[in-house]
């Protein structure tokens, strides 16, 4: 097992992790501020990817495609918040899960209706395609490096937004005490719509960015959604820092587990059995990680104690 392979896989895991972070950040903000479990977050990811693919097809510009993805997802998020979600804030988790599960059905089937079941494709822009050589002689795709950079940049930006800006102060206040913030004269329903749209825009951005390395199709949001939930539960719901740590943990566990667990089992098992045991354990690894974290700390790594 060469160092180069290991370094490559670590980078892959990091790239996967930061994309999960884009999803998880929105989910965790929405839960932290509004106390809402939003299963339909994966649909916003899908909407972002579809708009990016369509706009890139029309204009040929990847940048415009990204902007369209974020705008469309934010608009869809704001619309859903205004029409459905705000009726759910004071309901229990079960109602929230089911209503947003219903939204998934509507979004997925609606998208299938409009675009059909065949996947769309979104190309990596020429300027970002091809490999670059990193220190140590590692050849690595430039686009994936850009994804890592973008994800970390967004994480930094979100951190600054939360700690340094007026809206960030309102968000943090909203997490602690809803009545207090209403008493301070902040328009709470506008804040909620804004937070929801912000979360949606991040999901849309993730969908568009990942859409360029995978296919754009109906149902692409749900696997990512589940992983994003795993991320925020590991990190502690409501914590942006937890989401970042959880996302990178999950990204690395998933990627490295898939590559190295079969190899590990080959050390003491026959190769075919090792591959099957190793890969099955690898796909279970992040859920095992999550279960272990929750059993150890029932409210996640950075979660408030119950």
């Amino acid at each position, binding site marked *: 097992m060469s160092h180069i392979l290991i370094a490559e896989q670590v980078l892959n895991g990091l790239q996967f992790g930061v994309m999960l972070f884009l999803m998880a950040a929105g989910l965790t903000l929405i839960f932290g501020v509004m106390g809402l479990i939003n299963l339909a977050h994966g649909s916003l990811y899908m909407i972002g990817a579809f708009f990016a693919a369509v706009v890139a097809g029309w204009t040929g510009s990847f940048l415009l495609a990204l902007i369209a993805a974020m705008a469309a997802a934010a608009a869809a998020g704001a619309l859903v918040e205004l029409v459905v979600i705000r009726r759910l804030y004071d309901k229990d988790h079960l109602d929230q899960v*089911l209503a947003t599960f219903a939204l998934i059905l509507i979004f997925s089937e609606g998208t299938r209706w409009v675009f059909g079941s065949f996947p769309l494709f979104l190309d990596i822009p020429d300027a970002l395609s091809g490999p670059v050589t990193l220190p140590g002689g590692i050849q690595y795709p430039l686009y994936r490096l850009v994804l890592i950079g973008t994800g970390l940049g967004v994480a930094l930006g979100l951190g600054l937004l939360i700690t340094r800006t007026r809206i960030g102060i309102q968000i943090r206040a909203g997490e602690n005490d809803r009545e207090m913030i209403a008493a301070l004269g902040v328009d709470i329903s506008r804040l909620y719509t804004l937070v929801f749209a912000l979360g949606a825009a991040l999901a849309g951005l993730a969908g568009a960015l990942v859409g360029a390395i995978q296919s754009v199709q109906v149902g692409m949001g749900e696997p990512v959604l589940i992983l994003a939930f795993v991320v925020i539960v590991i990190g502690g719901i409501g914590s942006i820092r937890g989401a970042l740590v959880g996302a990178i943990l999950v990204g690395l566990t998933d990627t490295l587990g898939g590559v190295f667990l079969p190899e590990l089992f080959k050390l003491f098992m026959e190769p075919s059995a090792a591959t099957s045991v190793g890969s099955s354990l690898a796909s*279970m690894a992040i859920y095992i990680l999550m279960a272990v974290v929750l059993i150890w700390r029932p409210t996640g790594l950075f979660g408030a104690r119950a």
Partner: protein
Amino acid sequence: MRREAALNAAILVALIAVPAWAHLSDEPFTITLATRAVILALAAVGLNIALGIGGMVSFGHAVYFGIGGYAMGILASHAQSYTPMELFGLSIEGTKSMLVIWLVAVVLSALAALVIGLLSLRTSGVYFIMITLAFGQMFFFFSISWAAYGGEDGLSIYVRNGFPGLNTLVPIQYFGLCLAILLVVLWFNARLARSPFGLALNAARQSPARAETVGLNPMRLRLVAFVISGAITGLAGALFADLNRFVSPTMFSWQLSGEITVLIIIGGVGRLMGPVAGAVVFVALEHLLGGLTEFWHIYLGAALLLVVLFARGGLVGLIAGRPGGGGGGHG
């Protein structure tokens, strides 16, 4: 209360009359649909014990459904290939006997529920929803990579398993068998809800502090309810696999967990016949709307949304009025 009893009776009559009519007019597909509804209802009745009485929002009940399914698939596949399975040095024969398969399904899903419950019940609220989901995903991915039993493709069983005195391949006979099981479990559920255990569990959901102050341990009550719930859903899984003569990892999928939950919500959380009403409506919608449009999930989604937002008691609540004890979430 009286209206709910009348509604319950009406649902049962419909559940018997429709397949009887289908049998007489030689419409086996309708009987298969009714059997599907009965089995899904059974799975949801199981979940409703944890969810409706115990207040545990499990989003991973597909685990038990899948275990029941694979118990059937694995035992029957060994029987049909005449090869015993090797397990820890033991050589175990497969079987085509439903009774044995059910027993294995119930015991294994109860065991799984015991372990998962012990670990998950330490958490509450969203964390409980998510950890049960995580266990579901573990089983899902495990089944996908379990090449010995079909992996992603699943397992086909050629002939439906046998039950003494019945020809289970005749649709109406298999339907009758499943309905009988559902009725027995509903009877058990009705008794359970009124039993000392049910009273305590129900109180522990509404006010854990109250249960503790009278000397009851809410955690233990919930765990026992969770095991009973998992065992019933596991039995439903074995029946479902036998209906389709096929098992695959989709029985473990989180969408299936969601679907079982949806049945309960449509029907009415914590209501005895809620899951049955929900399953009947769900299968009917699936069939009728599915025939009209390929995109019937849109309408299902819209219906579900309307129920959650405007008809909190589900269909039973809508027709029969206020609940007889139920509703609400865990933590």
